[in-house]
């Protein structure tokens, strides 16, 4: 982590001393957060628009961009540590947006044992990391990116494609063989159980991408090329007829049980939208806090929240993007509404304080930590009072 950036309270900084105003970053930024002033010719950053995708960081030839999350040093440190920990020489770099979380990597690449490196967008990985990994003795590198038109950061996946193409040519010349780095694309998709579907049309209404089509007669059909795997329809289906491939409710439930068994009191379970919170690679949570990263806050099903309470979790904390920052077309707002509804019902049995929803953005790295800290202090105070 670059300390200089952290001091400023933001996640990204443009270092004017190094910047040569080459415009690569401003031409690649998917959010128009980096621009070049036409009069002065200077490049400048509007942090409010920045989503910290890191594409600028990984492509800047002058190393003029400082970033907090997954910068070169922390990635190298992670690789060195993980190589020992996992004791193998296969590396899988994956975008969280497309990576199957519980199973599926093995199926996709045919590797059973590997060092996982999961980041929000593989477009943020600088070329040096691939070369460093090879230098460290890593024999096989697999990269899992999203389908190009599915990339939440618009250019992250295409940029990765070009980077790997160039790297592979270079590596071939150096004698590392053809296609030393293997790139695959994948996207999360919904799957429907037509036997359970009651043709209510909820998914059609809620889908931000018009992927759900209800025909009469004929029932529900999903256009999987349009589906972006946010899981909003899954959480809204009254018939429990939908699942998100590799994010099945069942596996989240198993994970909740596992986490609950290793937590101390008062147990706080955090559901994080992976676009709202970028956890550091060496993240160490307090012994009473565990987290589950989800493709979108909309994937937080009421079942999961109640399931957690049933399994002895004291409280549930949900961190989502604000509606403006939501990478899933306002799914965050729908998630908030649904959590508010559940909170109302929890209030009827006096449990409303155990559910907390907040919106945070990775551009302000302290936001999430502060919010969680405050919530956890509140719960700890209540817990120590009650246990006395």
């Amino acid at each position, binding site marked *: 982590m670059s300390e200089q950036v952290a001091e400023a309270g933001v996640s990204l900084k443009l270092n004017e001393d190094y910047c040569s105003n080459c415009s690569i970053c401003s031409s690649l930024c998917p959010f128009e957060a980096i621009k070049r002033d036409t009069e002065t010719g200077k490049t400048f950053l509007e942090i409010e628009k920045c989503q910290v995708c890191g594409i600028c960081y990984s492509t800047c030839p002058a190393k003029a961009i400082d970033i907090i999350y997954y910068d070169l040093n922390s990635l190298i440190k992670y690789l060195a540590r993980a190589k020992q920990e996992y004791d193998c020489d296969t590396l899988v770099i994956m975008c969280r947006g497309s990576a199957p979380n519980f199973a599926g990597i093995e199926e996709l690449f045919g590797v059973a044992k590997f060092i996982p490196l999961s980041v929000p967008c593989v477009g943020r990985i600088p070329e040096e990391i691939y070369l460093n990994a090879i230098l460290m003795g890593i024999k096989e590198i697999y990269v899992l990116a999203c389908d190009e038109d599915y990339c939440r950061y618009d250019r992250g996946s295409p940029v990765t494609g070009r980077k790997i193409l160039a790297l592979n040519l270079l590596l071939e010349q150096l004698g590392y063989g053809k296609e030393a780095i293997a790139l695959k694309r994948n996207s999360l998709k919904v799957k429907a159980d037509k036997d359970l579907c*009651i043709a*209510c049309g909820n998914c059609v209404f809620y889908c931000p991408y018009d992927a759900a089509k209800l025909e009469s007669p004929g029932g529900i059909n999903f256009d999987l090329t349009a589906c972006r795997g946010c899981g909003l329809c899954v959480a809204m289906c009254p018939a429990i007829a939908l699942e998100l491939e590799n994010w099945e409710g069942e596996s989240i439930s198993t994970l909740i049980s596992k986490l609950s068994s290793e937590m101390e009191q008062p147990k706080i379970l955090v559901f994080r939208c992976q676009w709202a919170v970028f956890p550091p690679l060496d993240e160490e949570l307090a012994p009473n806090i565990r987290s589950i990263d989800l493709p979108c806050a909309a994937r937080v099903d009421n079942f999961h929240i109640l399931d957690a309470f049933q399994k002895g979790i004291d409280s549930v904390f949900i961190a989502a993007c604000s509606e403006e920052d939501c990478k899933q077309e306002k799914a965050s707002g729908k998630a908030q509404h649904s959590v508010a509804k559940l909170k109302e019902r929890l209030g009827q049995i006096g449990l409303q304080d155990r559910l907390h929803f907040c919106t945070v953005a990775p551009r302000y790295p302290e936001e999430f930590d502060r919010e969680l800290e405050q919530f956890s202090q509140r719960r700890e105070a209540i817990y120590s009072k009650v246990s006395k």
Partner: protein
Amino acid sequence: MIVTTQKPLDELLDFISTYSNILIAGCDGCTQPPRGLREAKTLSQLLELGGKLRNKNFSFKTTTIAKQCDYYLVASMLKPQLEGVEAVLSLACGIGVQTLAELFPEIPVFPAQNTHFMGAEEREGAILEERCAGCGDCLLALTGGICPIARCTKGLLNGACGGSKDGKCELNPERDCGWILIYEQLKKKGKLDLLKEFRPPRDYQLTGWKVST
């Protein structure tokens, strides 16, 4: 659609307090918002948590059927699931609850919801509004497709009462005046002359209590 709202959890907990094995039966029919498997499961989780706070351990089974107002379906699909069940919590409208109560005389059947009216869903604003009063003598052809019985607070048949203000009802300023809606609709359709037609008082017997299919 038959519009329902969830009863408060403590009321439900009171209903079931003396039972342990409870079946929560969803209805995929016309209850709105949907009260299918998801609601059944969510409710079971909430009641289990609520029960624990009252030092009571419930055991729930959840299921759903296409419509609880159908004797045949209830008898053939729900009845076989009653083994070991001491009480049923029905997620159907009042009609479904009555069907179940009649068909399962030996088991207490409780409504999990309050039933309100026949209404339409406006999903954007998450609002459901009454649209049909089930009068047995449909007037919609004469009123531009807007029901004066359901939409006019006073259920007037022959035009506005004169108390409307800014298009809203004098009895409830949040509610649209049904007759202004009718007027605007007829104007759009070029059928304002329909307003001149006199409609005699309703025959309340037409509502009926029984029809044969």
